[in-house]
């Protein structure tokens, strides 16, 4: 069993597991931090950006792709754990010769589609007259200013996919439900489990009858909107692959939400605008719910909230129909029947308005001061670029960063100098190290495998020994482009014994509670399933006919006799011989045992602890008689 590690990003993993001749890709996250190397793509021609010295707008859409560690066309299935971890799917399904199946839950697919749609839309609506790629050449890259000069594997950066590729990729997905057992080629069973992090987010169990690998990716124990994490089913794993822990282990999400609300209120009360760069799904639902409870008490009920994204409407609508994937509280609302999320009410009362983009209706409705939720959190493309340009010069305004995926300082770099306030309230509900060690104690895997980043404290806080995984035996770590041999040996495989065969078995008790039965049966293997059937009855000799060739008589040496065990008590053996008509028996003691002599028959039987040797003349009748008498004292296996 091997694990091929294709991504070095711990929260956007991409690993390939080879297990019982099945090749399973676990997630395909897309590391978009490389976009920070590019200038923002403005919706409106910005004289400031285009006049920055020495730089023209180059191909602003490039992403880190996979290495050539493994032939991706050999991947049998891809398991997706949540919508953030499927963003690279079109690159794999459309460009590598992949012919397998992708498994994901319905919310993951629907929301993943929205995220991809938004991304494609953001990029495509600002087409560039020219694109450059020659700079990726190593010789030229060397001459470029830092940090581009130092960027690794630039050649793997790719252009953004198209909507057509997205649709084609998504059509390869098969929908699954939590706790659904999916058979892969009869050899391996995979099962998604609720992971508590996002709508439809899942951890996966990959198991055969005797081995179990758990893949934990992006899990949360906090009670937000999704169904709680299923921990019990992770128990008894041989290997637990742990990825997607919180990116901000020192921040408490609850505290951050409080800070978010108070900063928002403060800015708005002072007549400023609030910009929240965000993804169109996920934490935004929780933020809207908090604001729903908060705005009246904070006196903000007259402030408009705008949610601007090409998929804003879809995201809000979809969130309301996935009752089965929500936490208990939200499910019970559906029974009333009421929409599970209160943003339905915010929309109804006109407090929250959503628009596909800043063009069109929005420009008519736009009132300030206001709160705007929009993407993309990298500040490099999407409507957020416009608001940064619009509001950046006034210190009344505030931008609040809630998504933890990008360094906010780097994201802000091209907009400097900025007058607007910048607040960093990263909300990452994924497991922190305390929760991880509790989880590992609870589910007790034999081995833990994780990205190398988790086995040491973060570089910026190297003294914080609590910010790393602590378990026994120590976790095996991996880094990008590494192949790990997972530490377990398969010993057993399931086989089915047909009832007719089972009836014919004769068990004998060897020790109290332990019985044995020798089995001789025909093995049938089909679709990786093994079945034992009773051996066919020996063909009846067709009476009277003389066999023609001597070779017909030659026994098939592959008809195996059972092994023997036990020992022969000499006295009893001699008695038995006498009972069967042998006389003239003489017993001699030797160093290791005895020799029984049948003088008349010129036969010698050496009996030792672990062996019996019958030496006789060529008298088959006699030999067979003696053999059967000896066998009476021995057990067959």
């Amino acid at each position: 069993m091997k694990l091929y590690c294709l991504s070095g990003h711990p929260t956007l993993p991409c690993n390939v597991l080879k297990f019982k001749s099945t090749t399973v890709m676990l997630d395909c996250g897309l590391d978009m931090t490389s976009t920070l190397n590019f200038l923002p793509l403005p919706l409106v021609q910005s004289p400031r950006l285009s006049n920055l010295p020495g730089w023209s707008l180059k191909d602003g859409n490039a992403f880190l792709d996979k290495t050539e560690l493994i032939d991706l066309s050999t991947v049998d299935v891809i398991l997706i754990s949540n919508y953030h971890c499927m963003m690279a799917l079109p690159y794999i399904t459309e460009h590598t010769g992949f012919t397998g199946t992708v498994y994901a839950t319905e919310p993951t697919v629907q929301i993943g589609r929205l995220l991809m749609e938004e991304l494609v839309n953001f990029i495509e609506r600002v087409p560039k007259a020219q694109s450059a790629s020659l700079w990726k050449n190593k010789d030229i890259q060397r001459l470029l200013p830092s940090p581009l000069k130092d960027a690794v594997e630039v050649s793997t950066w790719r252009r953004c996919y198209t909507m057509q590729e997205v649709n084609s990729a998504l059509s390869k997905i098969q929908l699954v439900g939590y706790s659904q057992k999916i058979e892969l080629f009869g050899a391996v069973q995979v099962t998604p489990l609720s992971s508590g992090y996002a709508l439809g987010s899942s951890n996966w169990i990959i198991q055969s009858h005797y081995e179990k690998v758990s893949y934990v990716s992006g899990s949360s124990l906090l009670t937000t909107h999704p169904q709680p994490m299923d921990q019990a089913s992770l128990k008894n794993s041989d290997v637990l692959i742990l990825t997607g822990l919180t990116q901000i282990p020192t921040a408490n999400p609850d505290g951050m939400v409080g800070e978010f609300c108070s900063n928002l209120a403060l800015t708005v009360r002072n007549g400023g605008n609030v910009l929240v760069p965000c993804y169109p799904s996920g934490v935004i639902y929780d933020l809207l719910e908090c604001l729903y409870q908060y705005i009246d008490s904070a006196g903000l009920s007259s402030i408009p909230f705008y949610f601007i994204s090409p998929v804003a409407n879809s995201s809000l609508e979809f969130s309301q129909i996935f009752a089965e994937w929500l936490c208990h509280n939200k499910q019970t609302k559906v029974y009333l029947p009421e929409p599970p999320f209160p943003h339905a009410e915010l929309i109804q009362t006109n407090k929250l308005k959503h628009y596909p983009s800043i063009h069109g209706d929005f420009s008519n409705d736009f009132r300030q001061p206001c709160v705007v939720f929009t993407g993309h959190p990298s500040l490099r493309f999407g409507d957020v670029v416009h608001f940064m340009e619009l509001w950046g010069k006034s210190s009344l305004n505030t931008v609040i960063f809630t998504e933890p995926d990008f360094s906010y300082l780097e994201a802000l770099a091209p907009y400097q100098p900025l007058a607007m306030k910048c607040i960093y309230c990263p909300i990452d509900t994924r497991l922190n190290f305390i929760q991880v060690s509790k989880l590992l104690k609870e589910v007790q895997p034999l081995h833990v495998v994780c990205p190398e980043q988790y086995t040491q404290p973060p570089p910026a806080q190297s003294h914080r020994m609590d910010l790393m995984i602590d378990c026994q035996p120590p976790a095996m770590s991996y880094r990008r482009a590494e192949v790990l041999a997972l530490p377990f040996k398969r010993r057993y495989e399931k086989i089915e014994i047909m009832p007719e065969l089972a009836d014919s078995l004769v068990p004998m008790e060897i020790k109290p509670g332990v019985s044995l039965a020798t089995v001789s049966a025909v093995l049938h293997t089909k679709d990786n399933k093994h079945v034992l059937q009773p051996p066919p009855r020996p063909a009846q000799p067709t009476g009277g006919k003389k066999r023609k060739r001597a070779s017909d008589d030659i026994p098939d040496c592959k008809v195996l006799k059972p092994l023997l065990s036990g020992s022969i008590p000499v006295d009893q053996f001699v008695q038995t011989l006498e009972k069967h008509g042998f006389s003239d028996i003489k017993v001699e003691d030797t160093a290791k045992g005895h020799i029984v002599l049948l003088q008349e028959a010129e036969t010698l039987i050496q009996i030792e602890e672990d062996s019996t040797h019958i030496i006789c003349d060529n008298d088959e009748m006699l030999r067979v008689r003696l053999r059967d008498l000896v066998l009476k004292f021995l057990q067959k296996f």
Partner: protein
Amino acid sequence: MPEIRVTPLGAGQDVGRSCILVSIAGKNVMLDCGMHMGFSDDRRFPDFSYITRSGRLTDFLDCVIISHFHLDHCGALPYFSEMVGYDGPIYMTQPTQAICPILLEDYRKIAVDKKGEANFFTSQMIKDCMKKVVAVHLHQTVQVDDELEIKAYYAGHVLGAAMFQIKVGSESVVYTGDYNMTPDRHLGAAWIDKCRPNLLITESTYATTIRDSKRCRERDFLKKVHETVERGGKVLIPVFALGRAQELCILLETFWERMDLKAPIYFSTGLTEKANHYYKLFIPWTNQKIRKTFVQRNMFEFKHIKAFDRAFADSPGPMVVFATPGMLHAGQSLQIFRKWAGNEKNMVIMPGYCVQGTVGHKILSGQRKLEMEGRQVLEVKMQVEYMSFSAHADAKGIMQLVGQAEPENVLLVHGEAKKMEFLKQKIEQEFRVSCYMPANGETVTLPTSPSIPVGVSLGLLKREMAQGLLPDAKKPRLLHGTLIMKDSNFRLVSSEQALKELGLAEHQLRFTCRVHLHDTRKEQETAVRVYSHLKSVLKDHCVQHLPDGSVTVESILIQAAAHSEDPGTKVLLVSWTYQDEELGSYLTSLLKKGLPQAS
């Protein structure tokens, strides 16, 4: 001998009061817990005393499964769990869990408040009963206990309807509940994988009907409604609040929009508003088209269909009214029917199945003079139309499902005996499987022969698989091993490993036979002759002449020695272990016959 036992307490050769007991591998499961619409006495609920006379139901039943929210499948549930007493788990899908208590409450109101029945379950009992419900997702494998697992499949019949697979080890039963094999305007088609259950329990409402295409039926329906409205008549469509109602609403809504019709469409109030809301929230359970377009246009937000008020029934002019309940046995639909029945301009369209004893059934069977309460006789002059919009599978659909699931046996419930008989024959002919149709209280017993799963050591398995990739029909290869049974842990290992694991030493049994040969030559030459002789006879075996002068055949050792007394005789010592018994014995007899003369 293990067996599966099935006893219908309701829905055996009957429609209504669905309740089927299944015993499989020592587990007892109750499928559905319905009421009968044709009765208002004791017979309306299943006779639960059949399950156990003295003991508690909870001790006897491992779980209860409800297939969908129709009252003939869940109507007796609060009575069963709260009045008879059952505290175990009740499984149903989430939409069923949401809608079921509302229908039960409605049913209770009609029974207690309108008919004044005493000793009926209370609202509180409905709530307590629903607390015992565990929601099941589609395709999720729910582990009821360590051995019993259930899995739900999409059934299409109404929102949240499911078929259930009940599985213990390698034995399984599939219960379809009610299902529909053709997608309609708001639901998808039932689907099941090739799960090869030991038994498929299927509904057979339309066992003998093969419905014409859905499109024709819809066109007919719309034409009739349109004609009636055009000539100023009123159309009454009795429906149940959830299910067909939404289907027909979507149909009329789109028709009205397309034709730009002005006649009002009403929906009798009460459940409707709420019902439509459920449909909006459970979009993933509807069909593909609705799921794809719901963001732009939610099909369950109707523009042309308004809430009905009692007073509207007397207003003049054409109108279309959907009213509950669907079989005209009580409530608003019956009231409106009585008002409109006398006018031949009007029309009543029955869109679904009617249980015997209901007004719906009477008018459909051609009765035109109905005796109402108080000895009144109601003359029916309005047109009576029947349009099968029931979302049940027809005969073709049932056959299709049997083909999909590939069961070993089929059992029919939820249908009429005569029609079942016909379908039973058809299934037995076409699929060559046994088909049963027990009456209520009658038990069907099916012997099963489950195979036994054991763990085989990979070494043994690989050794065996490496030997023969192509199975030979004439000479099947045998796998030899030892089955170690320790508690409930069964493992098949090679004999060597079994000995080792149990700490037992192998006992070697060896034979050495002296074969006397007349040969005057030297021992070495005798050995050479033996070698060439064996080599020519035993072509398939490995015969070797070793440097020390001995000859081996596989692992059998043959040595030639001089006779101590007779120089003209040589002694061959043939030595083999018990494991080579056949070959050793064969060799001695072969050598005894002597060697061929050297040429």
